[in-house]
């Protein structure tokens, strides 16, 4: 029974592919956060008197709060289905590094939530009155911020996995961790809208992204492993 063993990268890629295929077969699940994001950005101008100057000031807050909430919304699904049908156990038993496999799942989450939101965000900001030149800055900020949010969220999702309907707990746990991302993300966005140099805040966002990319997968893997007991 001496068989070739697939590399960890191959295994992780397979999970990524499979999850993307599943998402393609069930578009409702990942369209929901997007729809929510769209509704929020539409709602803001409606809920306020449409005064361009004021709206523009609100744009950073609206964007980042809805980004955070939208990724929280999707996080609840991150591992839950795999836990329910026993797939998560099979990951453990595959003999592949668990961290890598879970990172693939987080990557899917980001591809389906963070990336579309980052692409859509500048559009929403412009509709809220931001100048078109601000778009690249906003895009980069959302891109970097959403990576960190997905990674932080993966820890929370892992911790609340054993908990039925852990949604509230999930947000309670992730929120404090996400605060710096939110603050600097909103600051970068505000600077970009004002036409100022946002690179300081963007570097900070990038640093947070790198930091969480190295640490969060470990914590998430530990959390999920515990939930399987």
């Amino acid at each position, binding site marked *: *029974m001496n*068989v*070739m*063993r*697939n590399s960890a990268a*191959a*295994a992780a*890629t*397979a*999970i990524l*592919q*499979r999850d993307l*295929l*599943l998402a393609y*077969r*069930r578009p409702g699940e990942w369209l929901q956060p997007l729809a929510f994001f769209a509704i929020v950005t539409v709602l803001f101008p409606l809920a306020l008197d449409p005064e361009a100057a004021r709206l523009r000031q609100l744009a950073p807050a609206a964007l980042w709060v809805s980004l955070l909430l939208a990724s929280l919304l999707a996080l609840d699904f991150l591992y839950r289905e795999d836990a*329910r*049908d*026993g*797939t998560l*156990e*099979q*990951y*453990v*038993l*595959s*003999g*592949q*590094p668990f961290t890598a*496999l879970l990172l693939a799942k987080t990557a899917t989450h980001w591809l389906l939530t963070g990336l579309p939101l980052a692409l859509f965000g500048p559009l929403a900001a412009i509709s809220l009155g931001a100048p078109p030149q601000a778009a690249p800055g906003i895009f980069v900020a959302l891109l970097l911020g959403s990576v960190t949010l997905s990674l932080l969220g993966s820890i929370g999702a892992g911790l609340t996995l054993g908990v039925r309907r852990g949604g509230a707990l999930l947000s309670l746990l992730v929120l404090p961790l996400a605060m710096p991302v939110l603050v600097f993300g909103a600051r970068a966005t505000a600077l970009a809208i004002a036409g100022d140099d946002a690179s300081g805040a963007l570097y900070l966002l990038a640093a947070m992204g790198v930091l969480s990319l190295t640490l969060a997968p470990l914590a998430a893997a530990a959390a999920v492993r515990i939930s*399987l*007991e």
Partner: protein
Amino acid sequence: MLEVSNLHLWRGDRHLLRGVNFTLFSGQVLQLLWPNGTGKTTLLRAIAGFLHAEEGELRWQGRRIDADRDAFHWDVAYLGHETALKGDLTAFENLRYACAMRSPVTAERLRVTLVDVGLAHSDPAQPVRSFSAGQQRRVALARLSLWNAKLWLLDEPAANLDSAGQQLLASLLLAHVRRGGMAILATHHAIALPDADCRQWQLPQEVV
């Protein structure tokens, strides 16, 4: 070789298993026929490493399994009450991704295996969700036979299977044992395995 010595397992405040001891050699099958709620599933999950045993020792090929979990897990295949199939994928896709996590398998081999477990006639684009309970089990059996694991841990593998399916299971087990594999099954109807070194364990208190 799997050695289980003096294993104690708790569920909540219940001291469920008080000192389990047995050794399983290459080519052997152990059938757990214990009554409901006496800890078959618990024992299998503990061996698979999902439950931490505070007391007792598990050794695989002479080494403690917590010494190198990944190496042990590579040798183990577990099939529980849940089939670990994705309802939105076809049987073929399910097998493909499940195998990609372990070792490379050709598409041809996947197709042959699906035919072997009696799923030849189904629509290849049919998602597993719409399979009948027994058909889903068969997909899980196909996956099991593709994984090349040395130790099979099967929790009620015969559930939902018709008599042809049960024969299929028996023949998979026989082939596995002939290749030098070993298996622990939890079941309520003992599976007949002629010519195999197969022990039946009726009650947890018994010594095997």
